[in-house]
């Protein structure tokens, strides 16, 4: 797993696997805390892309955590709010 340390997990904020692993290990924290400490999941896509990867990393690091233990939590808005659409919707 030579390269895995540098692989980007949160594409929006360019947070790597190494960043997440070391932070999770150091603090044995919840997903929410991990996001606050590393900024993963706080980018433009609202964590949509990295959420599951982060959950899996936490599950692998926190002892006794089973798959699916991390509850689903979403904050609105779940889509970027723009004032009007460019390109227009079709009638």
């Amino acid at each position, binding site marked *: *797993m030579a390269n895995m340390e540098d692989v980007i*997990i949160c594409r929006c904020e360019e947070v790597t696997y190494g960043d997440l692993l070391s932070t999770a290990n150091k603090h044995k924290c919840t997903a929410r805390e991990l996001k606050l400490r590393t900024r993963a999941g706080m980018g433009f896509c609202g964590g949509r892309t990295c959420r*599951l990867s982060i959950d899996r990393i936490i599950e692998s690091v926190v002892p006794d955590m089973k798959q699916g233990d991390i509850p689903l*939590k979403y904050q*609105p*808005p779940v*889509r970027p*709010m723009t004032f009007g659409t460019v390109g227009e919707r079709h009638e």
Partner: protein
Amino acid sequence: MSDCIIIGAGPAGLAGAIACARFGLHVTVLDEFIKPGGRLLGQLHQEPSGEWWNGIKEAERLHQEAIQLSVDIRCGVSVYNLEKEDSCWNVYTNAGTFTAPFVLVATGAAEFPIPVPGWTLPGVMSIGAAQVMTNVHRVQVGKKGIIIGANILAFAILNELQLAGIHVDRIVLPEKSAISQKAGEPEEVLKSLLNAAHLAPSPLLRLGSRFMKNEWFRQLGLRFYPKGGMKVNGTPLQLRKAAIEIIGQHQVEGVKVVDIGVDGTIVPGSEEIYEADFVCIAGGLYPLAELTAVAGCPFQFVPELGGHVPVHSEWMETPLPGLFVAGNITGIESGKIAMAQGTVAGLAIAKHAGKGRNAIDHQIEHAVQHVRNVRASAAIQFNPQIESGRQKMKELWEQEYGSKLNRASEERIG
């Protein structure tokens, strides 16, 4: 104000709209994509009967039927929040707020990403993205590509790419990690592929699968798995190779691949670079349930259904009055199931809205049975344990909500 708002104009949403509208309800369907049909639009495969399932045609058929019934379909509309206010639901979008007593969330599924070093390079895309470019937009995704991840979805889309004349050089596995998990273990991948082995395009795979179901034979088979891979319509499936890096300066130029053991461990010194100008990551699907989450719907983690799933009844009701779900959001299955579920949801909404009198219960049960029939005759099954997943949800509902909501459904809402 509409009687019912449907979020998602895919097979479940359109079928739901049709069922509702047939009872005279005024229905509005919202979808963020440029045209209706959802992910049906990209689907193209042959059933074992030889008949083609043409998603574009199916979507058009549903679209036309909905239009005939005066369903209002609005594309290019993104829903960013869903909230109950008194007895109505507010659907917040970039085109304003829509309100109705009934909402059907039919937002489908999303793909699991599998992070690979270099995966942010232009030219690396989810395999669903390749499907949309190929079948919906008719644009070539590249001249030569590599698929990372071997699962049913990957094979279905590989087939679509091949049909369109796109050169897929090979399929390899992702590197085993805490994130890729079983997707990086040849033993596990083979096991899951074998559950759909009757779909194997190659007679060799089909014959071999009978023996492969046996643990011992499987281990043997994996140990002697040809290095060049077994061909799937000309594209080698290399179960003993893993992608460890995607390389390129401004866009994809190649993929660095290593040999792996049967459990996914890397064979040192086996690195090779294969040229490619596009890479598809195939991580599998999970229910896209974020809107039901912000609406406050309870969830259950059911791996057989694909992940966290909004709690729902066989009638597609959720514990929140007026909120319904249908399609892949309830669990990953086919477009046909999504349609059948959409119909159940539409009928259930009509009943909750006070339509249909005595006959409607019967119609709903008939529609529920239809879902079961479609499942029993499914050609492609993303997850062989789907039946047990559906059963888990059914039991959970009955335990937690069964008796309570049956009474509530007699009341008129809105």
